[in-house]
């Protein structure tokens, strides 16, 4: 089946991001196609490249980046959610004259239209961290 996920939860504040990651891995293991991962509201913190995790905690930011790269997943962060939380790619950092980009490169910044598109093209959509 074709499945898309929307992730509302930040990695450090609730379990939702962890659950979504585990679900995504299990879906891929079962042979399903992940059409899109859409990170919304506080979920954009999963795409933060500058987060540094304690050694005795699972680095969810790195885990997402690895999963996305290994499976060439389409991972989109909502632009409005991302900018106000300081998650910027190099283009946005230049546009707003910020001195650093913070988006992990395996993610893309785009708009809610990408989630609408995912809903239209997926057999199943699941929300995590609501």
């Amino acid at each position, binding site marked *: 089946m074709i499945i898309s996920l929307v992730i509302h939860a930040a990695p450090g504040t609730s379990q939702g991001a962890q659950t979504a990651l585990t679900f995504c891995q*299990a879906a891929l293991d079962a042979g399903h196609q992940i059409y899109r991962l859409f990170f919304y509201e506080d979920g954009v913190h999963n795409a933060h490249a500058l987060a540094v995790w304690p050694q005795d905690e699972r680095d969810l930011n790195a885990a997402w980046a690895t999963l996305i790269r290994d499976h060439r997943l389409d991972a989109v962060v909502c632009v409005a959610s991302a900018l106000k939380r300081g998650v910027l790619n190099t283009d946005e950092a230049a546009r707003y004259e910020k001195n650093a980009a913070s988006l992990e490169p395996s993610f893309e910044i785009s708009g809610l239209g990408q989630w609408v598109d995912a809903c239209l093209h997926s057999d199943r959509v699941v929300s995590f961290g609501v």
Partner: protein
Amino acid sequence: MSTLHIVSKSPFRTDALQRCLSLVAPGDSIILIEDGVLAVNLSILGERISGTDVSCFALAGDLIARSLTTAGTEIQQADAASFVALVCEHRNSISYG
């Protein structure tokens, strides 16, 4: 057209479980995840699903993390692969926060 109801919040902190139970229909399933598994022994849940064709599941890892068990209930344990299968078996899903 069946629905999978995904409850992720503690019944002692939000009304997520109550909203789920008010909407669940015959043929639907419920899965308790994260702090939602704290509802596993609540009579309000057991009474709602008993004798109906509504199936209820709880994520095993989240139960273990909270020292909970489904013993003595009609709730079945699910792992991540079962969670994915439940999503595929139902046309829609609703996540309750």
